[in-house]
């Protein structure tokens, strides 16, 4: 083996035994991780990227998983041939790992100090006192303020970003040769993500570690990785230097993946999708790249075509956070705090903000899925907040919502057909079952699905397909106004592009008005006419989409924009 590689993976295959037979999660892949460099492993869900990293740690659950062939040479030693006790000496010591969800990867009943100490005492044979001193040093290194006191904190006393820092401190405690980071920033807000990426880059240099950075986000990869491996359905489709891959992708999948990501500096009319570049079988398609370079012109407001449809006036929603012994509320959380804005017909208002800023509460208050505390929501002049139950039900025909998680927002016990027909039954649309079925079929066609699928259950569909079903259901009552609450956040980028295009097409065809809620500024920029930035329950800044990105006024907006990975 070449001495500049720390790990060499040769012909690795992993299979899983399922009810439907053998599934090949990783198919005969080979790559090596150089010493002291960061290797990015990119792929969408189900591409086998996490399975590959678990194989390195020998953490594939068996059964049902099995490494069927290959070698993993770590410093020339085949990890797959080691005994379990030998492997345990390597895990957490020479190879360590951080995970996506810092909430669940720390044990809630131990202090963070105890948890990091454990690693040190186990692998380094330190006594408790020495270990604790080292922990304070480590916490300082990963940027936890007041480390000497924070060692005694429990995980729930820390924020998500801090917890991820603690995870990193734990991972680097034994100065590993290889750090595997599996989507370490996916669950974090962009501003926090930026800090964590900077921290990882700094530590990588200081310790001269190799890092295997696994992510679905190409922007993040470009910021942090020296080399990239692109995985697709268990295969490596392309690998090379980050710069080369980004500037001259060879494989059609990589080309599609790079092109379909909305970005802040591009302003296309439509997003290309992976299927524009590649056939189902993985063959390259001739795609005219010029056709996507068409720039979206900003749509000026036309008073007669775009009258004000929705006017929100000093809307507030408060949640009690502390109650006295007699049930009297002593403290309130102002999730939505004195918010006013207007949305014009046929246009899209983007609502951006980080987690906890109140954007979802605002979206749901508009539809009275959550009862607002105060303020008015005027829809075509009617105050929605003061409607009685019957009038509100009529109003729901006009206002619809599409949720974030298409897995949770469809009733798993209802066929797709029943789900789409339900709103029609409630509102008395269609004379008979056949008529409603026919309309449901038309809606399926409209969102790009086959009407044969109507009698299937939601779990038989992929995430993107389910989101299409949710859209069809929302359209069943022919609404004028739709709140899209993080509607593409749970989807892979290539699917996200398809859904965004679909939303744009539907807006054009049906003259829909959207409020598009998202934490992703690039997505919001792509789809919106106007953008409002939320923070702490308030709207800080509102402008047309181009204006807010080119000329942000508020400091928070500037900070948010600068935190986005540039993706070269």
């Amino acid at each position, binding site marked *: 083996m070449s001495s500049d590689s720390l790990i060499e993976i040769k012909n690795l295959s992993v299979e*899983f035994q*399922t*009810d*439907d037979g053998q*599934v090949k999660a990783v198919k005969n892949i080979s790559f090596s991780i150089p010493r002291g460099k960061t290797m990015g492993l990119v792929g969408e869900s189900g591409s086998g990227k996490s399975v590959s990293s678990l194989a390195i740690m020998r953490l594939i659950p068996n059964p*049902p998983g099995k490494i069927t062939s290959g070698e993993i040479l770590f410093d020339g030693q085949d990890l797959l041939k080691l005994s379990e006790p030998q492997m345990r000496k390597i895990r957490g010591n020479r190879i360590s790992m951080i995970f996506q969800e810092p909430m669940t990867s720390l044990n809630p009943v131990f202090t963070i100090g105890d948890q990091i100490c454990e690693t040190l005492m186990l692998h380094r044979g330190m006594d408790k006192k020495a270990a604790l001193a080292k922990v304070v040093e480590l916490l300082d290194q990963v940027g936890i303020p007041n480390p000497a006191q924070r060692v005694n904190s429990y995980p729930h006393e820390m924020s998500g970003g801090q917890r991820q820092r603690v995870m990193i401190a734990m991972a680097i405690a034994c100065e590993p040769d290889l750090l595997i980071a599996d989507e370490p920033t996916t669950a974090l807000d962009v501003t926090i993500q930026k800090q964590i990426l900077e921290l990882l880059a700094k530590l990588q240099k200081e310790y001269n570690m190799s890092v295997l950075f696994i992510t679905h986000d190409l922007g993040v990869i470009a910021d942090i990785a020296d080399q990239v491996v692109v995985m697709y359905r268990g295969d490596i489709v392309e690998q090379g230097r980050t710069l080369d891959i980004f500037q001259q992708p060879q494989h059609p999948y990589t080309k599609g993946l790079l092109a379909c990501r909305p970005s802040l500096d591009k302003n296309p009319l439509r997003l290309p999708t992976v299927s524009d570049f590649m056939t189902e079988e993985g063959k390259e398609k001739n795609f005219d790249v010029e056709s996507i370079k068409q720039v979206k012109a900003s749509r000026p407001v036309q008073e007669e075509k775009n009258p004000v449809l929705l006017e929100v006036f000093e809307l507030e929603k408060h949640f009690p956070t502390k109650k006295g012994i007699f049930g009297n509320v002593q403290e309130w959380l102002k999730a939505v705090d004195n918010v006013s804005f207007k949305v014009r017909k046929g246009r899209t208002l983007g609502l951006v903000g980080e987690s906890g800023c109140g954007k979802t509460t605002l979206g*749901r208050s508009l*539809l009275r*899925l959550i009862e607002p505390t105060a303020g008015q929501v005027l829809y075509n002049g009617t105050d929605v907040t003061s409607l009685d139950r019957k009038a*509100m*039900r009529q109003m*729901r*025909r006009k206002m*619809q*919502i599409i*949720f*974030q*998680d298409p897995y*949770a*927002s*469809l*009733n*798993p*016990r*209802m066929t797709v*057909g029943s789900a789409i027909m*339900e*709103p029609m039954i*409630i*509102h008395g649309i269609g004379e008979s079952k*056949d008529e409603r*079925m*026919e309309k*449901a*079929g038309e809606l399926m066609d409209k969102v790009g699905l086959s*009407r*044969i699928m*109507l*009698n*299937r*259950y939601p*779990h*038989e569909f992929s995430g993107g397909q389910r989101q299409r079903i*949710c859209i069809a*259901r*929302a359209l*069943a*009552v022919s609404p004028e106004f739709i709140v899209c609450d993080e509607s593409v956040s749970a989807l892979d980028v290539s699917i996200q592009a398809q859904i965004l295009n679909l939303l744009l097409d539907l807006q054009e065809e049906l003259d829909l008005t959207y409020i598009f809620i998202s934490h992703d500024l690039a997505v919001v920029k792509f789809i919106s006419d106007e953008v409002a930035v939320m923070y702490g329950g308030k709207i800080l800044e509102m402008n047309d989409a181009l204006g807010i990105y080119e000329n942000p006024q508020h400091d928070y907006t500037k900070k948010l924009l600068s935190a986005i990975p540039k993706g070269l």
Partner: protein
Amino acid sequence: MSQSQKPPARRNSLWWDALRHLRRQPLAMVSLGVILFYVGLALLCSAGVIFTDYALVDHNRPYQEPSWENWLGTDIFGRDVLARAAHGSITSLSVGFVGTGLALVIGTLLGALAGYFGGRTDDLVVWFYTTVDTIPYILLVVSLAFIMGPSLQTLYLAIGLTFWVSHCRIVRAEFLKHRERDYVQGALAVGASHWRRIFIHILPNIFHLILINFSLVFVTAVKSEVILSFLGLGVEPGVPSWGMMINDARLELPRGVWWGLAAATGFMFFLILAFNLFNDALREALDPKRSRV
């Protein structure tokens, strides 16, 4: 129109999936077979097709040992023990099904209302079930038996009115969880009424828990019937019941008459065992966390 030209070759819903899983478990299928055997036995007995001589008194043949004529011997009145035990399954199963059914209906309704509406409704229901829970059920049954007299109806009511509490707790917790889920919020967004959200949306999603609870409460109900009959609070004298047979065995055992006790406990043992094993398999088959990649 052509919406369902070809139904999917493999039905894919939780229920079909669970059924497929169950069918691969030999123990579960044997247990189900045993349960169905008991149901069939009870139906045939009550229809008067088999063991019609269960009440035939023959004072000349008391306490006959098991023989070819009377496989499990005879009791003090010369009645065939096997026939009595077989008829006992009518009592047990009917108490099991009716009592459990009643308990589950009460528990599900109250739990659903409490969990779904929350607030005052919830306070009221929680107060109610904690209060009921503090009364030992034997006491409640004794008082019911005193008021109504020992009969099958008393047993139905006694079991129905006491066994709903734990089920109600579970249903309430599930409704609390599900009412915040996106699919229920989504139903509200399309204008679905409370009724629709409770019964069309949430209830089918927790139905597997109701089913699992059914088999749990069923076992307890069958055992309770035996205990209550043993205490003389169950069915009226003369009606065949395993509890009565065990009660009789108190006087019989010193005389070396073991077959009455053996028949009653044997019949009870296999029914309860089958139900418990089936319940385990059912719980696993319906567990959403079971990997079905």
